[in-house]
């Protein structure tokens, strides 16, 4: 990258950050014009890229916990399975960072199942879906035992364990492929298309059923290791007609002010240890995090707690955490008691926990609260043959907030296994296979390669940072009011209409960034629209203009779908009309 371009971006960034601080007063106009004038000189010849085709029964997209279990269980059903992931199996998405996995032990020491489900439903102001909560409890121990058998708990790095199990089952693993398109034919999903990050080869997967386990998505925030997740799965599913739920909820994790992007330093305590099992422990940790206090007080006050010690609002009763599965003594497995980590000499130097910064997970929703709207407990989406699992499924296991330690990793395992099994059964039952029509292939290839072929336009990094400047500020993302949301929406629509179509890429790395940027813009629009619609405050959604919970009108989830003219439609799904068994 030439220094000229760099300085352009820096100048703009100064503007973007100033804007964040000043409350969105101005936009850096000059940088805008400069960026627009940028010519694209690709380092590779897009026309020389190859195309490869794969045929399978079940296609699993995503290499996290959900994708892994989907592939394992689908292949155990006897189906031919291909797993693809944007990164490495077990080393991409959020799975590499999760260290606590929940298991429900039906022992007298644990909270009774009914009470636990009730506690979660109450604590989450009924945003949880009790059927999925129950499903998690019923299956979690079996999944944890599977993982124990496979040596998952022996290392903090999961790739080897996952690879070993899939290779044993002869699952074809296609890593470093970014899927950009789901392909639908006659109301049914028939495959997917994407490109490899290494050489840009375009891959088409023809499948009878597809399990989407692409995880959640965020705005490439500083402070959480989730920057590879840009809601790709939900966005491509939306484009072919699936319903997306839960976009108004927010993850409220904070970072470290003296180095906001230092995710490893922030999560060091967790990242440097092996995974462990934890039992029932319903706990409400600050619903809005520190965002509300900061907004109210107007600044970070010296008295505010460290990033690590967020407010604990309520504590539900729980039994002692006894874990028959691990066979360890209760004190050792107590969920909140982290094992000793060796870091004094043997890990790179780090700084003390300092004052917090906001928006470490900007764009993320509480786990399992956003994603494809399920129509049944198998994770079947509104499109035939398309299943979702884990963070990609809006199952609302613990509702619009995180209430149970380890539940999201466990839910990914449980839902992955169930979706994989269901997808394999359907695939094996289906005799016919729809081939991907040649003209669709051409269109998709064109769409994938467009940023490489564009002669001039905007760099994905610039557009991403502009988007971040618009949606990440506290007064847009967390402390919402209608006027401000509308204003941000106008900016986002501008990006969507006049910038996304002009994204350029000079190499495959930037091609990936371009597609991710497109997904983030769409995701931002969804988040803003859903936030505008929900005229109340509940859980992690806070509206200054509607600061009370409104149980009468808003005991419902918001689903987003594509209308016939391609625009965004929103619908309301009452809590008591959740997916039935």
């Amino acid at each position, binding site marked *: 990258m030439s220094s000229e371009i760099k300085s352009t*971006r*820096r100048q703009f*960034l*100064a503007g*973007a*950050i100033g804007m*964040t601080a000043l409350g969105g007063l101005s936009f850096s106009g000059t940088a805008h014009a400069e960026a627009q004038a940028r010519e694209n000189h690709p380092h590779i010849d897009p026309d020389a890229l190859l195309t490869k085709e794969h045929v399978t029964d079940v296609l699993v997209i995503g290499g996290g916990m959900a994708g892994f279990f989907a592939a394992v269980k689908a292949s155990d059903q006897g189906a031919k399975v291909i797993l693809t992931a*944007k*990164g*490495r199996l077990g*080393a991409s*998405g959020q799975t*590499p*960072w999760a260290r606590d996995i929940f298991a429900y032990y039906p022992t007298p020491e644990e909270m009774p199942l009914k009470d636990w489900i009730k506690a979660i439903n109450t604590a989450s102001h009924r945003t949880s879906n009790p059927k999925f909560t129950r499903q998690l409890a019923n299956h979690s121990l079996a999944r944890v035992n599977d993982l124990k058998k496979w040596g998952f708990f022996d290392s*903090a*790095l999961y*790739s080897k364990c996952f690879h070993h199990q899939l290779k044993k089952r002869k699952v074809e693993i296609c*890593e*470093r492929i970014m899927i950009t398109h789901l392909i639908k034919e006659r109301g049914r999903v028939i495959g997917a298309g994407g490109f490899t*990050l290494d050489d840009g080869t375009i891959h088409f997967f023809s499948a009878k059923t597809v399990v989407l386990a692409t995880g959640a998505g965020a705005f*490439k*925030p*500083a*402070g959480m*290791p*989730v*920057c*590879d997740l840009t809601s790709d799965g939900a966005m491509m599913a939306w484009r072919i007609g699936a319903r997306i739920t839960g976009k108004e909820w927010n993850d409220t994790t904070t*970072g470290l*002010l003296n*180095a*906001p*992007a*230092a*995710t*490893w*330093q922030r999560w060091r305590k967790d990242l440097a240890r092996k995974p462990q099992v934890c039992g029932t422990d319903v706990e409400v940790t600050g619903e809005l995090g520190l*965002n509300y206090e*900061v*907004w109210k007080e107007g600044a970070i006050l010296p008295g505010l707690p460290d990033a690590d010690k967020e407010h604990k609002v309520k504590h539900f009763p729980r039994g002692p955490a006894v874990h028959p599965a691990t066979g360890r003594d209760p004190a050792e497995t107590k969920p909140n008691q982290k094992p000793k980590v060796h870091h004094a000499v043997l890990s*790179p130097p*780090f*700084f003390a926990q300092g004052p917090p*910064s*906001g*928006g*470490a997970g*900007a764009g993320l929703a509480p786990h399992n609260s956003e994603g494809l709207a399920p129509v049944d407990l198998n994770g079947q989406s509104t499109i035939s043959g398309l299943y979702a699992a884990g963070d990609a499924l809006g199952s609302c296991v613990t509702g619009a907030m995180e209430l149970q330690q380890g539940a999201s990793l466990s839910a990914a395992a449980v839902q992955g296994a169930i979706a994989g099994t269901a997808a394999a059964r359907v695939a094996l039952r289906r005799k016919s296979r729809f081939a991907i029509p040649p003209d669709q292939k051409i269109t998709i290839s064109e769409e994938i390669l467009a940023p490489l072929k564009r002669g001039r336009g905007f760099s994905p*990094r610039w557009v991403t*940072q502009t988007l*971040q*400047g618009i949606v*990440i*500020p*506290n007064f847009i*993302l*967390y402390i919402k009011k209608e006027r401000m949301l509308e204003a941000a929406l106008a900016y986002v629509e501008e990006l969507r209409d006049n910038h996304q179509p002009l994204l350029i890429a000079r190499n495959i*790395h930037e091609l*990936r*960034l371009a597609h991710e940027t497109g997904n983030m813009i769409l995701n931002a629009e969804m988040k803003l629209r859903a936030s505008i619609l929900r005229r109340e405050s509940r859980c992690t959604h806070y509206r200054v203009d509607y600061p009370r919970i409104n149980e009468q009108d808003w005991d419902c989830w918001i689903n987003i779908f594509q209308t016939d003219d391609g625009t965004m439609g929103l619908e309301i799904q009452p809590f008591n009309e959740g997916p039935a068994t």
Partner: protein
Amino acid sequence: MAIKKISGCIGCSECVLSCPMDVLRIGDNGKAEICWPEECQICHLCRMYCPVDAITIDPEKSIPVIISWG
């Protein structure tokens, strides 16, 4: 500045595979190269997978960050 330095690399490509952000590539000399440090999310996954601890990572990002408040 995010991922900072690679020294003593033996060229096993573990880090290239395990970087979720596609920051690294194997260069012409057969060693891992930091190609796009702008994208580095300072997650230390590459360092943890590197068999010879060749990678040094800085807590600061190489481009300015945008946060909700601070």
